[in-house]
């Protein structure tokens, strides 16, 4: 997939409002593969909604979203499954980890589906992000910052054309967010993928091609 086009898109809940001032809502926006985007937003402007629309979790929006020119509303269940497995990876703001599984199992449950990374590569990431000692711990016992790093690793164990990272570093310190940014960029470069991160203030230090205000 080479492009995601947001064509006149607007969440249904905003439909009544007349004063929509945004770089994305009600605009024609093209997100291209290989480029890095920052979506800046204040709370309640529909940042997480945007991610949900793109990943196909929610469909309560006006206008359309096009993947390489194909309307997302026309995709079937199997198309969405393929899209989530091979084209768009998502780092959820609420992380969506499985509390009863260990940190490693949370990553493996995704990697067993895609078979994309070796165990060694995954362990290398745990090492780099400073949570190697937490690999076998149940993820519910980890701090939110540590969980964010596990979720990041899970988002990377699949092929993707775009990586959507919804507030990826909200609970990370400088050092860790730099390490995370480096790993993310490295993997995206390797795959030639685009990155879309959202932020409500603190944002990842990345060479952004474009900053969009929601």
């Amino acid at each position: 997939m080479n492009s995601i086009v947001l064509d006149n898109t607007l969440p249904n809940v905003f439909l009544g409002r007349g004063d929509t001032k945004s770089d994305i809502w009600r605009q024609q926006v093209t997100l291209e593969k290989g480029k890095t985007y920052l979506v800046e937003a204040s709370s309640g402007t529909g940042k997480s909604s945007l991610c949900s629309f793109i990943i196909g979790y929610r469909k309560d929006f006006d206008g359309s979203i096009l993947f390489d020119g194909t309307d997302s509303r026309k995709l079937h269940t199997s198309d969405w499954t393929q899209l989530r497995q091979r084209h768009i990876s998502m780092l959820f703001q609420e992380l969506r980890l499985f509390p009863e599984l260990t940190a490693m199992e949370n990553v493996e449950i995704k990697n067993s589906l895609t078979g994309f990374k070796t165990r060694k590569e995954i362990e290398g990431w745990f090492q780099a992000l400073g949570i190697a000692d937490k690999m076998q711990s149940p993820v519910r016992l980890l701090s939110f910052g540590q969980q964010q790093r596990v979720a990041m690793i899970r988002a990377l164990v699949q092929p993707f054309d775009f990586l959507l990272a919804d507030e990826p570093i909200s609970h990370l310190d400088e050092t860790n967010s730099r390490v995370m940014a480096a790993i993310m960029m490295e993997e995206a470069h390797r795959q030639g993928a685009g990155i879309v991160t959202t932020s409500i203030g603190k944002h990842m230090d990345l060479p952004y091609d474009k900053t969009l205000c929601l």
Partner: protein
Amino acid sequence: MKLVWKLLRRHISLPQFAGFFFANLLGMLIVLLSLQVYRDVKPIFSEEDGFIRPDYLILSKRISALNAIGLGSVNTFSEREIRELESQPFAKRVGAFTASKYKVSCSMGIDGVAQIGTEMFFESVPDAFVDVDLKKWHFSEGDDFVPIIVPKTYLAIYNFGFAQSQNLPKLSEGVVGMVEMTIAMRGNGRNEYIKGRVIGFSTRLNTILAPESFIRWSNERYAPEAEAEPSRIILEVSNPADDAIVNYINGKGYEMEDDKLDAGRMTFFLRLVSGIVMLVGLLISLLSFYILMLSIYLLVEKNTEKMRTLLLIGYSPARVALPYQLLTIGMNAAVLLITACMLCWLRTLYLQRLHTVFPQMTAGSVWAALLLGVALFVIISLANALIIRRRINRIWNNKS
């Protein structure tokens, strides 16, 4: 898959699943056992001699003292009476017994030396009413051999009455089947012989039976002038327990061989009882299915968020549904297996008892019940799998 199972097995309620398991086991066992008992017991009532089926009745006219001295009404059935009987709603088919109208005598011997001989007679019914291998049951003009079916009581009379008092050897059914008889037929100025052999025994039909083609040919040959009105009628009915039959027959003053009707009634009663029991079993199965579905709904409800996450990270609805589908199918298969084993075990128990009461019984096969079990398993499992998949689809569509 292992990890997905580790995730989704949370909140599985053991008591609920055990409840389903035993309820389904009980329901299935009742359904299959009622069918099996029905199939095993039915032959006792209906196919004891494998000759005349229970839905056949044999009618005759009452012989009064006046008949005996040659006065009073005739005791044969006229053409009109047969047609009237045929037109009754309960009658499916009507066949007449035709008797031989000439003198018949028969002698049995071994190595051509006549041992015993007797005067006798033949009767026939249409071939369609004879429930033996029709390959053996035929005669055509020019044949020098005629197959015969005799009542079992004849053999008993010989064995326990005659043979005993005369110091003659007792004969088994098999031996009698091997003995060749010489049948002498006299009439119309002829005196001719034909070979005959007993090919079957009947405990119910009280006559010596020869093929209809033989009787027709021999009556024409030895007694061409004799009137051919039958004195007994065989009647196939759809439901022997029908009151209308008894009313009609009593109204006409006919006589009926009673045990047929009793056997018919018993079969009907057996069918009714096993039908009711089977229905109760099905009801229990249905309720157990309901319990399972409620448990699954509850389970899916409790694990909805996890399933949604699995779907969002790229798992297909089919893969998310699979663990629960396999769980239910596995349980159904275990139920089927245990039911089959229990069925076979219970069957040997009751068959032992039945054999002591009816030593000659031949039990039905167990395949029909097992087939029904497999059919139930397939239906229940398919319904389970489908319902689970639909629940997952609801999560996919964000409806729950």
